[in-house]
């Protein structure tokens, strides 16, 4: 073993090196004052660097915030459980939701599912569809410049409460189907004069869910989900009760959105 090799070997973290080799390297270095000095120099610098890293100030509230993560999750899980219980108490709501879910699933997977990648408004005839097309065009155009989040909740239940408190639209689709997703953030938008709730979901791919009052479509329900792509953003839109729900992603495809919507709806 050469002196340089011995130095390098002794410079490695303890535990990753064969004990016999380490002993051999130790003997070589001890016999060479220059090697010993070099190793000593390295260890002294390492000691200073470790100390320097250890002196990086940590925010005073970080520990409390980290500890509170556990409480927030417990709280969020409790609220979701409550929501689910309430849901079961009202069987007609359950039946209605199931019917919508089945309808959505059938429509989403059916061959005549609306699909076009040119522009939304050009492929959706009729007043209500044109309304969706205009909305999607607006959202696609503004995508990436909605501004900073108004709120970064610790869970979906907190996101729903935020929208509720701000008199912004909120949907059971969000709370019931993405309950285990931690949202990236929420923002309330003004789109065509309507308050629109936007929640960004840390799903794979990263998705935005827009909750729009159905008044934006003149109160009409869509007869089938609409899939489109505007400005490189994929959209899936459908009506649910009094709301128009729009899932969007820039990093994924319409197929990803269908998968999430279909998966979510049959839960």
């Amino acid at each position, binding site marked *: 073993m050469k002196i340089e090799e011995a130095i390098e070997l002794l410079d490695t973290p303890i535990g990753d090196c064969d004990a016999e080799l380490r002993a051999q390297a130790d003997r070589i270095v001890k016999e060479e004052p220059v090697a010993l000095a070099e190793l000593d120099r390295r260890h002294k610098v390492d000691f200073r660097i470790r100390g320097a890293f250890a002196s990086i100030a940590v925010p005073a509230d970080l520990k409390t915030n980290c500890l509170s993560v556990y409480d927030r999750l417990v709280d969020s899980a409790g609220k979701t459980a409550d929501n689910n219980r309430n849901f079961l108490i009202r069987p007609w709501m359950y039946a209605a939701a199931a019917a919508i879910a089945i309808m959505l699933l059938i429509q989403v997977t059916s061959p005549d599912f609306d699909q076009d990648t040119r522009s939304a408004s050009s492929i959706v005839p009729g007043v209500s569809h044109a309304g969706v097309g205009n909305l999607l065009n607006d959202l696609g155009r503004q995508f*990436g410049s909605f501004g900073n989040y108004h709120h970064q909740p610790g869970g979906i239940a907190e996101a729903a409460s935020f929208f509720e408190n701000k008199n912004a639209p909120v949907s059971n689709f969000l709370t019931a189907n993405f309950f285990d997703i931690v949202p990236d953030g929420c923002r309330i938008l003004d789109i065509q004069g309507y308050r629109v709730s936007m929640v960004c979901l840390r799903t794979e791919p990263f998705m935005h869910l827009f909750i729009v009052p159905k008044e934006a479509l003149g109160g009409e329900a869509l007869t089938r989900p609409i899939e489109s792509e505007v400005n490189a953003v994929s959209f899936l839109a459908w009506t649910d009760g009094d709301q128009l729900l729009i899932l969007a992603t820039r990093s994924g495809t319409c197929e990803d959105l269908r998968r999430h919507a279909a998966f979510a709806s049959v839960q």
Partner: protein
Amino acid sequence: MKRAPDRNLFNEVVELYYQPLYRFALSLSKREDQASDLTQETFRTFAQHGGELRDKGKVKSWLFTTLYREFLRLYKRSKRLDHYEPAVLEAQLGGSIQSDARRKHDAHLAVEALESVDEIFRAPLSLFYIEDLTYKEIADVLDLPMGTVMSRLSRGKAQLRDAFLNSAKNNSDA
């Protein structure tokens, strides 16, 4: 919460690792707010899935791995520019360490020296110097072969030592 660790274990793990995780996150993201978010996100994941860990001795590696993967995910996503204002992005991608991170002289030296090292060496160096992880643990966290980690650390340590001493010298000269 089915797979959550019990409350005492969670608190113990936070107590032990919130500081080194934050420092590792800061060395990666170069932003205090993102470092805090990454640290909290790591503990959120641990609160959800930490109960699945059969070998409690692997908690440390698991936490650093989780944080590193979350950083890579956020970094890739931030490159898509999908929801940030340009000013925020500019600060995020091109900004330097925020002034608050430089409160302490030695901390500043360490961060400055790390920034001057080739990028591929930074993550293994951070893990080595911040938490004294072994080569095997670093290889697990970064999902790299151990030989690659050894080679990167060997070259990276030489670069970092030189950079650190130069920074220290320049600062004392100034």
